[in-house]
């Protein structure tokens, strides 16, 4: 039971990392990034290609791939998203949705649909004794890294001036602008950061999940539910909801397997009935 709960947290780590990126992007730009899953997939494929064609190991990929994808994110924001933001939100929705399809198909064209092999890094091949039970080292690593990452993001957001601005701009963009902060300047790096985070999650996923063009599309629906449960644009809420959903679906698998996939959406419906803006969202964000 305890082990199962731990398990859920590992699954939740991916939800949390992806939801965190989605939340900052949505909060600051008002863009629902449908391409987020595709960037997660690109993260995993990026590390596969680096290893397969250039012999670059997991640890280097973990740094290089998110950085490269972050730059891609910056370019995308500069070239497209920025121009579409003043228009109807539908434009950015269509843009990111189309982008996701294109990225998926390009990868499919080049690498086919079968999953690509990616071995676990040798350093994390064993198991770790956690006192109450032993657990695969790699999964412990994933959980630890994502917790550290979320905590680091949290510290940056709450303890630094830049973080304060981003937080203000994420949660109340209009008011922040009115206070004389150039919100526009912060938009590009935040978008790039969100994409980099998705790529990072992808690199982490490669050794433990099937690396194929659809891996992001399969996951992203749940992540959207997570973000909605946490409260659209609420950073803390998204992370918490990510881990919570991981727990719920792991325990759901155990006790009511037939419902485990719908469970997330049942929970979403219940939360929205109780708090229409999500667990940590503000009502005004809805208007």
């Amino acid at each position, binding site marked *: 039971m305890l082990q199962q709960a731990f398990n859920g947290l590992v699954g939740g780590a991916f939800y949390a990392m992806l939801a965190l990126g989605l939340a900052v992007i949505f909060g600051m730009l008002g863009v629902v990034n449908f391409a987020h899953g595709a960037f997660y997939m690109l993260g995993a494929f990026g590390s596969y290609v680096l290893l397969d064609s250039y012999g670059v190991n997991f640890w280097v990929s973990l740094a290089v791939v998110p950085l490269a994808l972050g730059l891609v994110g910056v370019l995308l924001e500069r070239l497209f998203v920025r121009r579409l933001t003043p228009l109807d939100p539908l434009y950015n929705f269509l843009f990111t949705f189309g982008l996701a399809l294109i990225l998926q198909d390009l990868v499919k064209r080049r690498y086919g*649909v079968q999953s690509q092999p990616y071995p676990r890094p040798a350093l994390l091949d064993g198991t770790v004794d956690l006192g109450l039970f032993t657990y695969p080292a*790699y999964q412990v690593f994933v959980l630890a890294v994502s917790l550290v990452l979320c905590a680091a993001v949290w510290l940056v957001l709450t303890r630094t001036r830049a973080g304060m601005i981003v937080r203000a701009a994420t949660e109340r963009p209009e008011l922040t602008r009115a206070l004389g902060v150039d919100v526009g300047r912060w938009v590009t790096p935040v978008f790039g950061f969100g994409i980099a985070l998705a790529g990072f999650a992808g690199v982490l996923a490669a050794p*433990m999940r099937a690396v194929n063009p659809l891996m992001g599309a399969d996951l992203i629906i749940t992540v959207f539910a997570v973000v909605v449960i946490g409260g659209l644009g609420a950073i803390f809420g998204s992370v918490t909801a990510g881990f919570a959903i991981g727990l719920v679906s792991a325990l759901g698998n155990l006790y009511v397997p037939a419902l485990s996939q719908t469970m997330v959406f049942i929970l979403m419906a219940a939360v929205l009935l109780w708090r229409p803006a999500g667990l940590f969202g503000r009502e005004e964000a809805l208007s």
Partner: protein
Amino acid sequence: MRALGRAAAAVAAAGVTIAGCAGGPGAGGSAGGISDGKVVLAVLNDQSGIYADLSGKSSVEAVKMAVADYKAKYGDKAVATDVEVLSADHQNKPEVANSKAQELYDRQRADLILDVPSSAAALAVAGVAKAKKKIFMDIGAATTELEGAQCNKYTFHYGYNTYMLAHGTGATVTKDGAKNWYIVYPDYAFGQDMQKNFTAAVQGAGGTVVTSDPAPFPNDNFSTFLLKAPGLDPKPEVLGTMQAGGDLVNLVKQYNEYKLRDKGIGLAVGLMFITDIHSLGPDALAGTKFTEAWYWNGSPENRAWADKFQSVAGKRPSFPNAANYSAALQYLEAVQRAGTDGADAVVKQLEGHTFEDVFARNGSIRAQDHLLLHDVHLAQVKPSAEVTEPWDYEKILSTIPADQAFQPADPACKL
């Protein structure tokens, strides 16, 4: 002037050819002869989705190889002198498969449709074949319905089915000593069917299915089930997974992470293609047992054919590739014996036919239900230390003879 003369000659030649055809045995499409002057084989399968890598376009190449081999064998005596190979993508959707099949039979004059993976699509095409009275040889789909309640005179099932997979792996592994099974299956038609067949096979061989759990489909986190396995009472000796494609890859990766093999729980896979082993790397699956319809490196003859296949398709053949080759070849042989491509005459030639080719050893097409019976194998994935060349992943443990590999004819089938 000279150019004009050449053009005129070409036109005249073409005229003669057409006249020749019209006057040939195909005229009128009456009894005997070749309808429309040519035999058209159509490969209808998934060319861009999840089954594209294991069959898809490479099966079209295999069918072309069959045509070339047929022509080389009969030369001037070939009944089918003009053979065309078409292909179409059904995107794994039954409704697309249905309309493509109609189009192939009606507008493109296909005499035979081949492959059609995924059971729902295959059953849709079988319905069209029956209505149009045209031949359909299914390779890609696993459902036993094709030779069961939904069988028909024009449909043949070629290569494998869920019974053969369950019986091969479930019964053999149980007889080899793994009595207690824990089965995890994807919660949709194929998985449920496999779970049922596996349970029957395990029990039939004196084993017990301790528990079987449905998993969501698709799913990327199987840890719940993997953690549960060692705690079951009695402790299962083997985890039987009915997952396929990406789900199978996810499950096996996590099976290895939890080191279940070290905890005494072996792995048996319901349906596995060589492309799946390639995805995971042989080490992830080393020791896993499964039923294989055909293996490219299983004999010198297979290997010779695989070399030829590789020179046109650029990769090693999967069993559906080889089965498509064999089905096309046996169809053309039947046309040769019948002296016509008229569907009824060809069906008569195929029914009860016994033969050997590179895919089908001890092959015979059962007259009652049109199921191909042939020798299949229990295979095991090699550890990478034993892999000596690319795609050499399998060790054949035993051969299951044709008459034991498949189920007895279902009385529900009325051709």
